[in-house]
């Protein structure tokens, strides 16, 4: 709460600028963004983006980047603070090892979203690809979150050690998750709307009933997600969500002999 208030104070002074990124090589484009931040701009809109990689990579500032077009791979990799909005689809490796901040994609995103993510939020309005949230981790207050409005490919939440993954499944038929959900899970929580057949769950996963804490968490996240992405979540019923947690924090304890 206090954090949010502090952020509000800082944001009172928005200095915005639009950059035409059409045909600009990523090196140049990202340097331009860094230069603009150095000059005190807090809201940078990039028009005509198509395929440029590493946008917002490694940025730590309290700024907002708005992308019109399809950004290239590794959007927001190692990011620690900014707010990134994409008004189109995104590609692979969004939020790679991200530490804090928020990425909102108003479209679909590709594979390996949030790999090794350590904090912050990624909201994707539509579908996501394979290995989303792979090896996400958390520690005390650092809890990363990924919410996807559509369906996901196989290996959702593979080897997750901490954090929260939510799959809403809008516009999907049957179960929104792929195969091998949560394989290797040893921490964190996965919420999936709809029933995932047991054969599709990783061996380390157990289904638990929703508790009130879960319900408030989900309600809060879905509301924030709806506001940010514009997805139509009017028919989403919290009770439809499955909660998945690991049955052990040490699933491979019996694997070795000495």
């Amino acid at each position, binding site marked *: 709460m206090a954090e949010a208030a502090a952020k509000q104070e800082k944001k009172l002074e928005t200095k915005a600028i639009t950059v035409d990124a059409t045909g600009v090589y*990523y090196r140049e484009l990202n340097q331009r963004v860094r230069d603009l931040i150095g000059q005190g701009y807090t809201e940078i809109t990039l028009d005509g983006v*198509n*395929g440029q*990689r590493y946008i917002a990579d490694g940025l730590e500032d309290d700024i907002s980047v708005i992308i019109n*077009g*399809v950004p*290239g*791979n590794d959007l927001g990799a190692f990011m620690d603070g900014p707010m990134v909005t994409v008004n189109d*689809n995104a*590609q*692979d490796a969004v939020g790679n090892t991200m530490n804090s901040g928020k990425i909102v994609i108003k479209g*679909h995103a*590709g*594979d390996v979203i949030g790999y090794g993510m350590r904090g912050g939020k990624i909201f994707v309005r539509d*579908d996501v*690809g*394979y290995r989303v949230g792979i090896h996400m981790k958390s520690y005390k207050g650092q809890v990363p979150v990924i919410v996807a409005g559509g369906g996901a*490919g*196989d*290996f959702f939440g593979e080897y997750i050690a901490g954090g929260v993954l939510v799959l809403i499944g809008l516009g999907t038929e049957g179960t929104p998750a792929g*195969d091998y959900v949560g394989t290797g899970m040893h921490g964190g929580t996965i919420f999936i709307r709809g029933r995932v057949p047991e*054969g599709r769950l990783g061996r380390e996963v157990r289904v638990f009933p929703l508790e009130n804490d879960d319900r408030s968490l989900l309600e809060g996240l879905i509301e924030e997600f709806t506001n940010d992405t514009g997805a139509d979540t009017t028919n989403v019923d919290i009770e439809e969500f499955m909660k998945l947690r690991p049955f052990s924090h040490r699933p491979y304890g019996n694997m070795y002999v000495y």
Partner: protein
Amino acid sequence: MDRHRVPAACGLSGVISQDGNLIEGDVIIESMRVIHDRGNGLGGGFAGYGIYPKYRDLYAVHVMFEDPEGRALCEELLERNLEVEAAEEIPTTPSEKIADPPILWRYFATPRGEKLSAEGREADDFMVKLVMEINMTVPGAFVFSSGKNMGVFKAVGFAEDVGEFYRLPEYAGYTWIGHGRFPTNTPGWWGGAHPFNILDWAVVHNGEVSSYGTNKRYLEMFGYQCTLLTDTEVMAYLFDLLIRKHKLPLEVACTVMAAPFWKDIDSQDTDRRHLDEALRMTYGSALVNGPFAVIAGFSRGMMGLNDRIKLRPLIAACKDDLLYVASEESAIRQICPKPDRVWAPKAGRPVVGELKGDV
């Protein structure tokens, strides 16, 4: 010196007009330009279909020669085996970005009737054998394309530079596929670039085949010589073997190469389970293991396929009759800013576009 096997780290793009409308070559070049960073400039190439309407029923043989002697020897072999209707240098624009080009020629020809009857072969088989013979016995000569009404254009360089070098904007075809390469050693040999071609198959490939040794030994049993030491060669030969020789439907051939897991096979109904089990039992050595995304062009269509656990990116899109497949969405959006639909193909399931009528 033994040439080492070169893994295929790369960028791919492909487009087909299923109505058979002709697309200009600069479209595929523009698409490849966007994913420039997936390559490292050590190889680039394209294949176009429907580009030789004047000679549509003849085999268009593209050959690269290290020296004029190689060309003379090769042409002797060609004359003996083929009726060559036209022969010319492949038009190129010299560029400082494309260094040391070999001599590049193309021949529009058909096998000599008497040769076919003497050997008791079909024309396709005859061409395959002839191409292998040239590539293995004529020093400094390499046939890099030999299908009908299609052609492969490849070199050492970034894809977009290779496309300009071969003057692809002057061609128009109903299918184009493109490739930019990132090899990890420096072969400097044009023949090693993608697409790899056999008859009308042109294959571009991203990934490394962990089962290469197994696949290669299997193919050698059927007479294929894997001389290029590239994984793409093995993929192209597998398509040729499974589809042309064994006559498996395209979708079934893809099931062989990117086989479903036993877990999933076991849970199917009896007929399908029996079929999938028989496929894995019989064609286990044709299972392609390791990460891969391929785009393959053939005379009547184009397909994209991923490995069974999607370790390489591949995305598809469509607009009207146009089907696009590429490594990154941006490569598609560059040449089709507002597609009707964009989707990610599932692991092991092909995306196929086919010509609706004749061309």
